[in-house]
């Protein structure tokens, strides 16, 4: 790469030198013989010749990265970090919160139609729930410590002062680096557990056409996961993979790549992260405050049968056919037992 830049610099500079030699009467033409050589040593000429590339040379210290003399890419990265990311992240997170408040005011809490039946059906087993909460809890800490790096100094620093803010950020950084591992493991397990129920199919197209459960009024057919949930799944798995790969590149600085690669990894990591944070805000809302009966799926794992029929009718039919029917209420007695 370095050789390429230098070759480019020489190529561009040669015609300039040629002109200087054929026109010796130009005022200020140097008389020193070394200056008759291609003037590629001039800073502005070199930078122009490299067209925004890195100016690099040879160095005699062991740290070969130090051979990079000027890297203009830092300017673009600064612009990204301070302006682009701040706006994209701010709009994604605050915009999603505003949307959710608006949605709540317009639609209210989505009730279970016909009320709770008192009979439940198992939606997620212990492994599924444990894995979900491992991913969820690490994601929340990763998200908060990540947002802190971009927004903390504007939001938190004025509130707690520099020393406390440094302590928070330092611990946040350690948490961010080490919780990446359980998070990644959880994403892999999530993929293995749920991918078979998340392959898009014709039901999803009909569900989306009907406006789904959020916007529309009817309750279009849905299997174990509706199209919206499948979207969340794929955003989590693919987005999680993207932040994991770029995150591991960042956590082993300059082991896999050079400075341009580090900057690019940070750009991908942060943009995918803020989008995931926005999506997860919506996921958290609809799983708790936004819908009656939904949070049971991930707490006890047992959802009310009426809730299940309302939102995942095809899945309920499937489960019933398998003989894994609903469990009766605790006080129920066998037929003829009274």
């Amino acid at each position, binding site marked *: 790469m370095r050789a390429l830049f*230098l070759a480019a610099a020489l190529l561009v500079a040669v015609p300039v030198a040629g002109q200087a030699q054929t026109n010796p009467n130009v005022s200020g033409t140097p008389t020193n013989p070394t200056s008759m*050589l291609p003037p590629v040593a001039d*800073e502005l000429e070199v930078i122009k010749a490299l067209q925004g590339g890195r100016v690099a040379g*040879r160095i005699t210290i062991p740290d070969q990265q130090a051979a990079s*003399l000027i*890297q203009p890419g830092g*300017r673009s990265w600064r612009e990204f970090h301070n302006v682009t990311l701040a706006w994209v992240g701010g709009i994604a997170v605050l915009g999603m919160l505003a949307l959710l408040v608006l949605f709540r005011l317009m639609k209210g809490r989505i009730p279970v139609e016909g009320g709770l039946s008192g009979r439940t059906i198992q939606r997620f087993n212990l492994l599924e729930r444990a894995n979900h909460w491992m991913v969820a809890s690490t994601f929340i800490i990763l998200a908060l410590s990540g947002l802190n790096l971009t927004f903390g100094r504007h939001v938190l620093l004025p509130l707690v002062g520099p020393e406390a803010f440094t302590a928070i950020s330092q611990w946040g950084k350690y948490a961010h680096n080490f919780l990446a591992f359980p998070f990644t493991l959880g994403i892999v397990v999530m993929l293995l557990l749920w991918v078979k129920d998340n392959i898009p199919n014709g039901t999803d197209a009909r569900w989306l056409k009907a406006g789904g459960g959020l916007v529309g009024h009817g309750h279009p057919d849905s299997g174990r996961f509706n199209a919206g949930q499948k979207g969340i799944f794929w955003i989590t798995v693919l987005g999680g993979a993207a932040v994991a790969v770029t995150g591991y590149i960042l956590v082993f600085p300059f082991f896999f790549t050079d400075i341009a690669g580090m900057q690019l990894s940070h750009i991908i990591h942060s943009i995918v992260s803020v989008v995931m944070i926005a999506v997860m805000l919506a996921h958290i809302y609809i799983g708790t405050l936004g819908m009656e009966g939904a949070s049971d799926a991930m707490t006890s794992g047992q959802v009310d049968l009426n809730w299940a029929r309302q939102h995942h009718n095809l899945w309920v039919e499937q489960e019933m056919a398998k003989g894994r029917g609903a469990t009766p209420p605790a006080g129920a007695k066998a037929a003829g037992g009274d």
Partner: protein
Amino acid sequence: MARMKFLLDAERCIECNACVTACKNEHEVPWGINRRRVVTINDGKPGERSVSMACMHCTDAPCAAVCPVSCFYTTADAVVLHDKDLCIGCGYCFYACPFGAPQYPRVGNFGSRGKMDKCTYCAGGPQADNTQAEYIQYGSNRLAEGKLPLCAEMCSTKALLAGDGAVIAQIYRERVQRRGYGSGAWGWRTAYRETVAI
């Protein structure tokens, strides 16, 4: 107050690395950290020049702009310094710095790079001037003693100039006018958004 700058006259630098050695010795800089280095461009080819580079103490410094914990500050002499007690070693300043000035004491897997270290323009840090605490964290504070950075003081060919920007620019300008050529004040356009007009 002066606006302190570095200026490297690449026509004079002979790549002797005395500036590097002086810096390391003056501040007891540990192994693996180079606050200053000499890079040779076009090595062995026409147009070969050596450039001694360290933190340029930029106007509108990129390191300070991206620092998540705002640990940088600019002194009255326009020297860009940072507070190691606040630094979390995230490495962002290295991504933003055009000159590769920020250094980290450890190899740094898992983000344990340690506190960032860089050229202080021989001006120490936020601790009280010329105290033991300041010396251990940041090295000596020559500026507080009325002296200029040692790298430039030691430079045998006076290729590396340190001091008030207007004064060193005038010295360089006179040199270029007298000898008839120069290869630009390396890093000035990037660091100070200006170059020395001849």
